[in-house]
């Protein structure tokens, strides 16, 4: 009996120590955040860094409130966010679809192999001007930029995952007389979910790159345009604001992918 209560106490202590560690980690994270912005503010005030180039948190905040009040930030932000989310979803879906097609037809995958290698090693943003000419300087061409940057790498990574599924899972399906479609649905796809999720995480960053570069080129609205415009009129407070907003949005998207991961991979 005494042994039991003793174990209970020790277990409680262990849980407490875990909680304590977590609190300290959170504490240091907040400290880094505050110190970073404080140093930035002070350095700018005391002219250690050129306030014209590096701006300061207080100026960025003031501009943020301004642009929130007149609604212009929200317009740019939602425009860019829409492009990125669409580009991200399209890139991932089309990439996975292409991987499924390659898995379905080994012959086709052998034929396409060199082209995939070429397309993968090519810098996709270099296609930007062609896309803009072909699709017009619009929402569509920027979404295409956001998608194209992640399609091929998604295809390659997911296809590799499909092929590396333990052949014994396929054998189990075959012994039940499973068709190729059933094998894909019951064995290949679910066992590749972890890989698909990790490419999703990479694609969040990639589609932001595609969209921002697209907006640089089109230069009509959006956060990418804000950056290019701020650069041209030498208003770096505007550039910093756009960068901070992008950082926040990209983080939120990443968190959403992690949420999806928890939903999709049940046996974790």
């Amino acid at each position: 009996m005494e042994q039991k209560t003793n174990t209970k106490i020790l277990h409680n202590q262990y849980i407490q120590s875990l909680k304590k560690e977590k609190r300290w980690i959170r504490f240091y994270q907040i400290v880094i955040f505050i110190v970073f912005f404080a140093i930035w503010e002070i350095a700018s005030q005391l002219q250690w860094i050129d306030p014209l180039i590096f701006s300061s948190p207080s100026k960025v905040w003031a501009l943020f409130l301004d642009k929130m009040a007149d609604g212009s930030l929200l317009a740019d932000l939602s425009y860019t966010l829409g492009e990125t989310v669409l580009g991200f979803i399209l890139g991932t879906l089309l990439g996975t679809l292409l991987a499924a097609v390659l898995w379905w037809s080994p012959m086709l995958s052998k034929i396409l192999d060199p082209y995939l290698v070429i397309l993968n090693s090519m810098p996709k943003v270099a296609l930007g001007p062609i896309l803009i000419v072909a699709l017009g300087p619009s929402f569509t061409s920027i979404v295409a930029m956001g998608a194209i940057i992640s399609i091929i790498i998604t295809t390659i990574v997911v296809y590799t995952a499909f092929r590396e599924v333990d052949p014994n899972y396929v054998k189990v399906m075959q012994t039940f007389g499973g068709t190729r479609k059933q094998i894909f649905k019951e064995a290949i796809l679910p066992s590749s979910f972890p890989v698909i999720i990790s490419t999703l995480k990479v694609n969040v960053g990639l589609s932001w790159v595609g969209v921002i570069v697209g907006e640089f080129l089109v230069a009509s609205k959006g956060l990418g345009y804000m950056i290019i415009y701020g650069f041209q009129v030498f208003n770096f407070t505007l550039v910093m604001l756009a960068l901070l907003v992008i950082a926040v949005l990209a983080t939120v998207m990443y968190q959403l992918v992690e949420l999806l991961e928890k939903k999709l991979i049940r046996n974790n």
Partner: protein
Amino acid sequence: MDFLKIDRIHHTYFTKTSAVTALSDVSLTVEEGEFVSFLGPSGCGKTTLLSIIAGLLSPTEGDVTLKNQPVQSLQHDIGYMLQQDYLFPWKTIEENILLGLKVAGRLNEENRETTIRLLEEMGLVGVESQFPKQLSGGMRQRAALVRTLATEPKLLMLDEPFSALDYQTKLKLEDLVSNTLKSFKKTAILVTHDIGEAIAMSDRVFLFSAGPGQIHKTFIIPKELRDSTPFDARNHPAYSDIFQTIWKELESLGTKDEY
């Protein structure tokens, strides 16, 4: 009429640099309700033969018929149990054991209940909603057996199903599998390299020699061993006689293989 007839099977694997003959002129028949074992050193083509019988692999030459029909068209009548359980880790135990019925499009409330009941008879109560990794090795292999039996196959193939388990679990599972198959009157083929397991579980043992795989000799297990459970058979006086006989045969093959 023979239940399962394997007629002059040859099988050769081709690669760019070589052609390896895995099986050469293998013929045998298995009666309905019989339990036979394929015993032999590694590389004697046991698993290849099993894949051919299961219709997963087409032999280079020869035919396999189950009740006079070619096995390729009979996949639903043949159950296959692998060396490891290969339960799908992303499916719950219930989804796993119902997989065969689902794939065959035969899943309904009635056979769902029958399958769950079978799971309970195997001593797995209340694990339906758990995931495979929450179960021990022996429990998982039992769940895999339920998955194989759920589709009610007429012929059951066991490809070293106990080799990945610890000894105690293995002995217990041998009894469980043997009793279950007997009560369902299933015909079964066991592939193993464990002489004791082959003797304890089967009615007949086919000893294979390697390079290329051939049937070297067939042993009929004495009736008194056949009628007892695998565990009791291992303790039966007749057991060590037949063990010695098979052991000597296996040894005579072994010298050729340079162990």
